[in-house]
């Protein structure tokens, strides 16, 4: 291909735009399943969390879990989706071994919420509003486990509450899709609606991708891409799919409507079933359940329980606390960190500047945590022995042998805000210096139940601030270094730092450096006068 052709080719590719809509399935963090009282819990022995209802036994009937409804409404409210006071459950019928009843209870014509939007900060900081068509409640299916040429059914997951959140096709690139998903996930996790775990499948996404020539108003034929279980794969799969469709159109072909599966090993999408093989789900109203009627009180109670969302927090941190965007971002990325920071502000009650508190959290506490939790130790002997005796066919590829485990498992919240503030005040009031403060903090992170004051006392770390004590030490230092003193008086100002350092060394860092500076200055002035 010569250069001209290549450019033409690129121009042709650029004349297309992608139109993407996402369907997100998110499990809800309820105690029990959506339509029965089985525990909603991951990772238990297959088929141990089941009952007649979620097994789909003859005669069993579903009962709506109000906690699930509450979480769904909470998510809908946070995503600005209109709540429908009357909604209907519907059956989605299809045969599959992991679907015990032969139908999934879902919502179809009248979902619990519809018409919303999410404002997403895209790459390059531009904001874009992605409309959300609907959020509805449904139940998850079980799982198939394939071992050799046999297949087994595990129904622990069957009946787990889900919300399906369907966006309008307002997304125009793979990176926008990821930004939207991240924003959505952040909100659901923040609200405690979902754990957002993509690997375990509690937060999943299908992408409807089509292309059209820029300027066209008509939508192209779409392909639904399934099986994208990480942000990275979402991005790659959509990118691949857009290019695939452009290739087809440029070579004179037509995109067909189909369901495609993403293969992360090869980074391609493969046709799973065409339009002809598409299921006819034969939706109809679930006759075993009455319409879901939500009262005004029910909705407003949930509304009032919604905590401030990360986006709003970031805005407030910048506006009210005068933090930088970066600091606000770090402090709000995780609900626990934001709560901790806000607790700290409350405890502080105006004593220390908020900007300083933010620095303490970001530069000292979070950093200290990272340091502490990266300290590892070899797996202890007894743990290894136990692992081997529990599993005789064990081949040694377990996490246990030859590995290291973290020595400390301290979490942010282990060091209480009040305790941390105590430490901050010790430093800010000059009782100890910043370096000592960090030593104390590390000690506190290793032993979270220790108070800052205790650590200081036990290790005798309190700063020497009394003028007399410091003056004695400084005098001693001057006496011990006559030559340097003479040079300093003679005009070698650089040596001032040397004396400060020596004095600090003598106090093992406990002296208040400000005081040292002051006293040293005075003494030298005196000596200068004398000479």
């Amino acid at each position, binding site marked *: 291909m010569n250069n001209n052709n290549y450019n033409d080719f690129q121009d042709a590719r650029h004349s297309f735009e992608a139109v993407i809509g996402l369907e997100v399935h998110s499990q809800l963090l309820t105690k029990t399943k959506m339509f029965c009282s089985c525990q909603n819990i991951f990772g238990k022995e297959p088929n141990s969390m089941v009952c007649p209802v979620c097994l789909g036994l003859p005669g069993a009937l579903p009962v709506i879990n109000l906690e699930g409804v509450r979480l769904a409404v909470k998510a809908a409210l946070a995503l600005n989706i209109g709540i429908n006071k009357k909604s209907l459950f519907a059956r989605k019928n299809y045969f599959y071994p992991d679907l*015990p009843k032969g139908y999934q209870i879902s919502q179809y014509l009248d979902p619990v919420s519809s018409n919303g939007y999410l404002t997403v900060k895209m790459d390059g900081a531009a904001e874009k509003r992605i409309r959300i068509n609907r959020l509805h409640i449904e139940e998850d299916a079980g799982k198939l486990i394939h071992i050799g040429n046999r297949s087994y059914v595990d129904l622990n997951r069957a009946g787990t509450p889900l919300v399906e959140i369907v966006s309008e096709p307002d997304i125009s690139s793979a990176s926008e899709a990821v930004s939207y998903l991240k924003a959505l996930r952040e909100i659901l996790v923040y609200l405690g609606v979902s754990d957002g775990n993509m690997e375990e499948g509690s937060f999943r996404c299908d992408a409807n991708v089509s292309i059209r020539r820029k300027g066209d108003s008509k939508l192209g034929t779409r392909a639904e891409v399934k099986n994208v279980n990480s942000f990275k794969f979402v991005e790659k799969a959509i990118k691949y799919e857009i290019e695939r469709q452009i290739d087809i159109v440029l070579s004179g072909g037509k995109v067909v409507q189909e369901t495609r599966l993403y293969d992360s090993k090869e980074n391609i999408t493969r046709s799973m079933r065409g339009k002809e093989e598409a299921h006819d789900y034969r939706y109809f109203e679930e006759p075993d359940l009455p319409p879901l009627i939500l009262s005004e009180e029910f909705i407003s109670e949930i509304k009032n329980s919604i905590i401030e969302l990360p986006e709003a927090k970031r805005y407030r941190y910048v506006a009210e606390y005068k933090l930088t965007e970066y600091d606000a971002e770090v402090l709000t990325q995780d609900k626990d960190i934001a709560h901790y920071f806000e607790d700290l502000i409350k405890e502080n009650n105006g004593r220390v500047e908020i900007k300083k508190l933010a620095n303490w959290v970001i530069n000292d506490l979070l950093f200290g945590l990272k340091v502490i939790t990266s300290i590892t130790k070899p797996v202890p002997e007894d743990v290894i022995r136990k692992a081997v005796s529990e599993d005789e066919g064990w081949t040694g590829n377990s996490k246990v042998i030859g590995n290291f485990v973290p020595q400390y498992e301290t979490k942010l919240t282990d060091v209480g805000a009040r305790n941390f503030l105590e430490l901050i005040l010790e430093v800010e009031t000059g009782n100890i210096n910043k370096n000592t403060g960090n030593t104390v903090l590390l000690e506190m992170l290793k032993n979270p139940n220790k108070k800052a004051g205790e650590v200081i006392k036990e290790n005798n770390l309190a700063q020497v601030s009394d003028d007399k004590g410091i003056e004695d030490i400084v005098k001693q230092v001057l006496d011990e270094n006559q030559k340097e003193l003479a040079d300093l008086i003679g005009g070698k100002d650089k040596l001032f730092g040397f004396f400060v350092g020596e004095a600090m060394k003598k106090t093992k860092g406990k002296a208040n450096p400000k005081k040292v500076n002051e006293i040293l200055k005075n003494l030298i002035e005196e000596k200068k006068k004398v000479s």
Partner: protein
Amino acid sequence: MDLSNLTIHQINDLLKYREVKSADITNSYIERIKKIDPVISAYLYNDFEEALSNAEYADKIIQKNKDFPYLTGIPLSIKDIFLIKGKKTTCASKILDNFISPYDATVIKRLKKNNYVFIGKTNMDEFAMGSSTENSAYKITKNPFDLNRVPGGSSGGSAASVSADLCAGSFGTDTGGSVRQPASLCGVVGLKPTYGLISRYGIIAFSSSLDQAGVIANDVLDAAIMLKAVAGFDEKDQTTRKFEIKDYPEIVKRADKSIMKGLRIGMPVEFFSEGLDLKIHSKIMEIKDLLKDLGANIVNITLPDTKYSVAAYYVIATSEASSNLERYDGIRFGGRFNEGKGIQSLDELYRKSREFGFGKEVKRRIILGTFALSAGYYDAYYKKASLVRKLIIKNYKDSFNNVDIILGPTSPTPAFLIGEKMSDPLSMYLSDIYTISVNLAYLPALSLPAGVMDNPAKKGGILPIGLQLISPWTTEARLLSVAKVIEDEVKFRDKYTPVI
């Protein structure tokens, strides 16, 4: 004394005054079942060991307490659609041939609390689909008034077991007439309560929005006793409601002729048109005159949209059934096709298991319902049928503004011959023409023996005729009271007995 032809309230009296033990009663039913049921085939199976142990337990309760629940020590049969823990429940289908229920239906739980005696599971049309019990995968049940005729269906085994005194009462289900029509054909009382009055939990679903458990009894008081024992809200069935459960037996006991004074009884013209056997027609007219003499106001009414009820019913019921029966896929329980060289694919496993496991009528209805719900047809069938259902509900509502209760026939014909309608599903479907609209409208209704007609095929033989009373939503007390007064006038039990 023959202890097996008593009503529940008669047995209760005997137990209360320690005249007999439940074990005696139970034994006499067991003896009768052993002798008679090989001819009638009302039961799919009996559990006499269980029955006697239940009876023993009941006798202990009776000895200890003066006040014991009404059904204590009473042997009852159960349609094989109710799940009983540890017992086989087949729904008369091969696909559930080996299914042992791991839990109790709410109805069964409540019966156990009432210390009833479980004596056996009765035959039925497979998955309750049918009006003659001929669709059972296992056996043909005979009508106790004529062994060449069907007992009706789908609760045919239950009706026959009560009619032939093979139990003191029976629990069935009624989706389009499955309790009332067999009760009518077998000369016993059949009550289908308001939808939502009795929990459906643990009852194998045919059509969820129409299914309702019902009772089949020797007389109206027995029906009231049985209803009281099981009715009421169940947190496991969200279609049950917190209706007020009245003391139906006491209300029935107090009912007398005086309640007929000024009672407005509606007679829908649609229930007396073409297709109704003339002898049944005139029998209902006789009853009407009798009620008029007792002081009732007879009002001619019209339920114009009930002419669409069979059509609407067969769309709604088959649609829901096609979905409800999807769980019988051979994967987790019930029959799985495993013959020959083995199954090559998942689809084949489904296909073979369902082909082998389901009978002809069940397949017919699954196909009908699947079609009615499929893309492009939903609006034309399911949606339209749902609209017709709304119209029928309105017809009844409007009528009940002017009348207190509705009177008509239960079935257009008396018991028909075995095999007579098996090759003609439409004529079989029409045997529920008067009962179906009641299910569509969620109403309570009762079939009461009104008398007999001559058996055209047997000289000197008789065939029972049933009348149907339909009353407004949740007015079971009224329904039972009116039925009781008619029962006292007709005295069916005193006059007529089955041939066996």
